[in-house]
């Protein structure tokens, strides 16, 4: 019968239309600004700089090694390396970025900077409501705007941040153990002029 196919299609449309009144699964629209979907954990948009502790200037993990600047495909990162060294969160003297700018109007959110960073200093943010009326300066983020605390990073990407924190803590513990070992060896060497005490080996371990 002519028109059978059309009727069949209309039945399908009607099923969807009336079904949306009884079946919650058929109501897929979210009323956006008032109602929001939960953030998916892996979501990324623009980079941020992680700092440890409470002071963003002192705690920045970035040591201005310039790897991300070189690796960035659209070249939206600009770093000026410091000439002096400042102690970082662990107290070790490090170079720091005197200037660290990211032009997020150029950034294409590829997260290659995150992948190449050996210090876990640069990570991806999830902030997306960034519209501004200032066309040039408003989207050129400087060091202070990019700096976000480790707590914030833990909040937006819990699994990833947990793994990073564990790895960093592991590394620090290892470095500390090494330092301690070296110091102890030094002390032992200094003490070695008189005959060494018998318990020396167990102390080192």
């Amino acid at each position: 019968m002519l028109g059978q196919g059309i009727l069949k299609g209309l039945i399908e449309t009607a099923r969807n239309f009336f079904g949306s009144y009884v079946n919650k699964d058929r109501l897929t629209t979210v009323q956006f600004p008032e109602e929001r979907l939960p953030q998916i954990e892996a979501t990324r948009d623009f980079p941020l700089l992680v700092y440890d502790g409470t002071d963003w200037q002192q705690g920045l993990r970035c040591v201005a090694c310039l790897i991300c600047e070189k690796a960035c495909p659209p070249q939206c990162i600009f770093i000026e390396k410091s000439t002096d060294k400042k102690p970082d969160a662990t107290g070790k003297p490090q170079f720091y970025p005197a200037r660290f700018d990211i032009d997020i109007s150029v950034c294409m959110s590829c997260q290659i900077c995150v992948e190449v960073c050996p210090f876990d200093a640069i990570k991806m943010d999830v902030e997306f409501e960034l519209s501004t009326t200032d066309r040039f300066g408003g989207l050129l983020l400087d060091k202070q705007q990019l700096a976000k605390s480790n707590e914030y990073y833990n909040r937006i990407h819990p699994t990833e941040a947990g793994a990073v924190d564990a790895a960093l803590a592991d590394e620090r513990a290892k470095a500390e153990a090494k330092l301690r070992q070296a110091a102890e060896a030094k002390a032992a060497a200094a003490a070695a002029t008189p005959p060494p005490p018998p318990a020396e080996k167990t102390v080192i371990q």
Partner: protein
Amino acid sequence: MSVLTETTVALSSDPTTDPNASQLLEVSMGPQHPSTHGVFRMDVALDGEQVVKLKPVFGYLHRNHEKIAESQNYLGCMPYTDRLDYICSITNNWAYALAVETLAGIKVPERAEYLRVITGELTRLQNHASLIGFLMQDMGTSGTPLMYAFREREKILDLFEALTGARMMCNYMRFGGCRVDAPAGWLQQTQKVIDAFPKFLDEFESLLRTNEILMARTQGVGRVSRELAINAGLTGPMARASGVNYDLRKVDSYGIYDRFSFRVPLGEFGDVYDRYMIRLLEMRESVEILKQAMRDIPSGPIMDPGTKIRGFRPKAGEAYGRIEAPKGELGFYLISDGTGNPYRFRVRPPSLINLTVLEDMCLGRNVADIVIILGSVDIVLGEVDR
């Protein structure tokens, strides 16, 4: 240059002697025409309502992709491939990764191969789903099928976001594997989407497959003969709708496609309706592949440990990597001179080559048919113009 000055077209009657004879009218369809799927222009010469000459004009979205890639390192090229065919970025990543892997002789771990197949087939599902939606929209269905298709596509994009961090610009694959492993619960979530997908296909088929208006609009329209399809180098659903049994997943069986059993649907007439049906049937086969891949996926590493991603320098040579992208054969041709960036980077985009038969399909048809014929080719201008 206008279409009319380029050729002299034989009119049905001579306008110099016959006062009622029609004159040719030149219409420029696009680049802002909404049904051209991007910025694409067609210079059409019309005799009344009939097309007598059609010239595709492209290049409005040219972004210098190949040259940019030649100044990037091998890793830096990867996010740019997302932006070729922006509907299905993961298959673009795959083709490029495959080319680099052929170039440097990298082996991909088992789990990464499975993840590639799963994400690649999901990409095919969402590409075909949105294509049939767009095609119906071109025919004037005022949104209903498109919204149904986008509802399903959204579920797959959510999976992509959970896995790769982005809905469309996934930047997921790396030469030597994949960037991240599936997070906890992702595979179960994927299984749910795959299991629910045939229901959508049934719904879509009963919605429109036997619709009389659809059949009248599409059957016998925009035919491509088998010979023309082969001679013009068409690939993908375009070629298969014309009855050319050519699917790189079967022919090349790149990756691990030789492990899956699936059928290759073939069309008979090569018209718009066949191209529409081919996509519906291919989605069913993709669901089959996905089911097998989800069943067999092993655990293990996802990156080849010997591959250095940063500062990657393959030895001098050339390689061509090709895959069956949802739109056809997508190939990357790379020449390496031993430095950190490719010496030559060439893309073989399926959309561009499938577009070459546009005039042959449109000649003698009405203006309204041009729109659906173009829609059935499945082009993405990011890929055509690069």
